[in-house]
């Protein structure tokens, strides 16, 4: 006789282990992920020059130093911001026509463009950094801000390429058909249907590129010169003398930027969808 399945008290709609164990594990991982970040943030309060945890005679002087008074850090922060914003804009501008070409009809040229644009992001950045270093030496641009912007744009264009492609796939086909039968030209369709519907995805891609560029280290390391440095570079350069609480302020500023940027993406875009969740399921 076939044994009857054990009767369950109740069958939930989602009969999956979402219970206590799942929550505990999520919380445990969250602590693990947050621990070093919190430690850095707390170290920023140190009164002295060394990174102690827990902080000694807590003060907020380091924040003033980082954002206002210390020339080294304010310049580095300004440069980081300039590079991040311009390279993200450039990356998005590069990615749009490539994504559009891929969506419009995957010709061999479009596919090659997509693969070429995605390649720097997929391979170890140190190799790309070494190559860019050589490239900018030949172009006579090594150590300039322009070189850093172009390098970051090339490195991160894969991100807007991905988000914009997802956005284009979500454009309602019925709208395109309707527009076409009503006689709209490709330009009009683009402006009135495709562009408005993909704006959240474009913005998401921009923010992804912005945050990653802000935090980029290794490629900047290879294309920079001693004349300037970004925040991440400055922190690495100070590594030999040990970390100081002022750098920890930098870490706080960077984390807040990321949370803000991704929070915006989550608020105005569909983050689960962007990350590959099933669009049909809510």
């Amino acid at each position: 006789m076939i044994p009857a399945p054990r009767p369950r008290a109740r069958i939930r709609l989602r009969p999956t282990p979402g219970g206590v164990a799942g929550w505990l594990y999520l919380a445990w991982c969250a602590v693990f992920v947050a621990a070093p970040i919190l430690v850095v943030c707390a170290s920023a309060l140190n009164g002295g020059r060394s990174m102690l945890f827990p902080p000694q005679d807590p003060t907020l002087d380091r924040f003033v130093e980082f954002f206002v008074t210390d020339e080294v850090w304010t310049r580095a922060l300004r440069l980081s911001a300039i590079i991040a914003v311009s390279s993200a804009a450039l990356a998005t501008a590069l990615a749009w026509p490539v994504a559009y070409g891929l969506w419009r009809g995957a010709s061999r040229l479009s596919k090659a463009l997509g693969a070429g644009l995605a390649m720097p992001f997929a391979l170890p950045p140190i190799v790309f950094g070494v190559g860019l270093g050589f490239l900018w030496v030949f172009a006579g641009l090594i150590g300039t801000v322009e070189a850093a912007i172009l390098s970051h744009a090339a490195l991160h264009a894969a991100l807007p390429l991905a988000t914009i492609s997802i956005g284009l796939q979500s454009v309602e086909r019925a709208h395109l058909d309707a527009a076409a039968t009503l006689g709209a030209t490709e330009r009009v369709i683009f402006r009135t249907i495709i562009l408005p519907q993909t704006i959240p995805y474009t913005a998401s891609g921009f923010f992804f590129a912005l945050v990653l560029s802000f935090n980029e280290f290794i490629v900047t390391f290879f294309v920079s010169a001693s004349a300037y440095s970004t925040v991440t570079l400055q922190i690495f350069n100070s590594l030999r003398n040990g970390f100081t609480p002022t750098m920890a302020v930098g870490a706080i500023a960077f984390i807040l930027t990321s949370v803000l940027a991704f929070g915006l993406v989550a608020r105005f875009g569909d983050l689960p969808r962007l990350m590959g969740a099933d669009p049909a399921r809510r």
Partner: protein
Amino acid sequence: MSTPPHAPAPAQARAQARAAAQQADRADPGAGAAGADLSAPRGRPGATGAPVDARPGAPSRGLRFVHAQYALALVVAGLCLSPFALVFAISLGEVEAGAAWNWGVSAANYARVFVGLDWPESASFVYMRKLGWSLAYAALGAVIAVAFAFPFAWAMTRRSRRAQTVWLVFLLSSLSLSEVFVVMGWDVLLSNRSGLPMAFRETGLTDWLKAVGWFDVLREIGLATPRNVRFKPSVFATVLTLSYLVFPYAVILLYPALSRLDPAMMEAARTMGARPFTVIRTVALPACRLPIAGAALLLFVYLLGAYVAVTVFADPSRQTLTITIYESVRGATLNAPFGAAQAMVLLVTAVACLGASLALAKRAERRS
């Protein structure tokens, strides 16, 4: 279970309504464009499912778009591909006195990476050993991260869409955090003066470890000095930081596969009386075998290029190829062609692994 309406939906709907309204405004049944549509060349039927037929591309515009694409190809080639080509070309060159180097076509730099400078008299595997450490750190870091990320991604995808969004913001913020800051955090946590070793001493954990005899084991594997535990430099600290670096990546790579798992399968398993853990082990894990392998490979490739964590946490005798690449290209030894050759070796390793992960992804797609 009631999922709150997702935030962007109203915005999307608004945009769509606006587009539809504008479209209606523009409706002009008498325009010739509709007729032109019929004679317009049909693009290739989109392999990506692109609605080619819906577009009334007049030939001149299509042609212009192709021209623009050629211009774009130049930019992409110059910015994205030429650096790799340059690395390859320079790796064949020869170094001169000082930092200067000449173009060339010699494999001497590669020979030096693989068997040392004095080949064939004697072979030295200094750089091969460094490559070995690169591979070992990357493999350990990737596997550990994926092992911890799978249950995390599983538990996360069981939440509501809104809770998932919050977790994603958290993960993305930690993921994008610069390697520099991550290393800084762990450096504070693991440093001898504060952080964990201090906590070990203050809480009496060190004394307890000494009492039960585990302290000697820690000393043997280099994680303790005679007085207290010591975590850096060590392989442990390096691997810990590397897996920390890619843990959020691992979750995000596994997220699509897990969130698309058919709930019916799990429901079936549960109604048949399988315990939650059994469901994970016998349903979710096998279904995600290929994504898991693919994610591990991708993270492995990413970790091959890790630099900061290795400089700070690894013992000099156990450092990786990335360190010597930097030394050769911009650091103390200044031998650009040799650095380029090392970079090429790393690149080829990475490309091979990426190829493998792409093949896995294709297989997964075909199967589903």
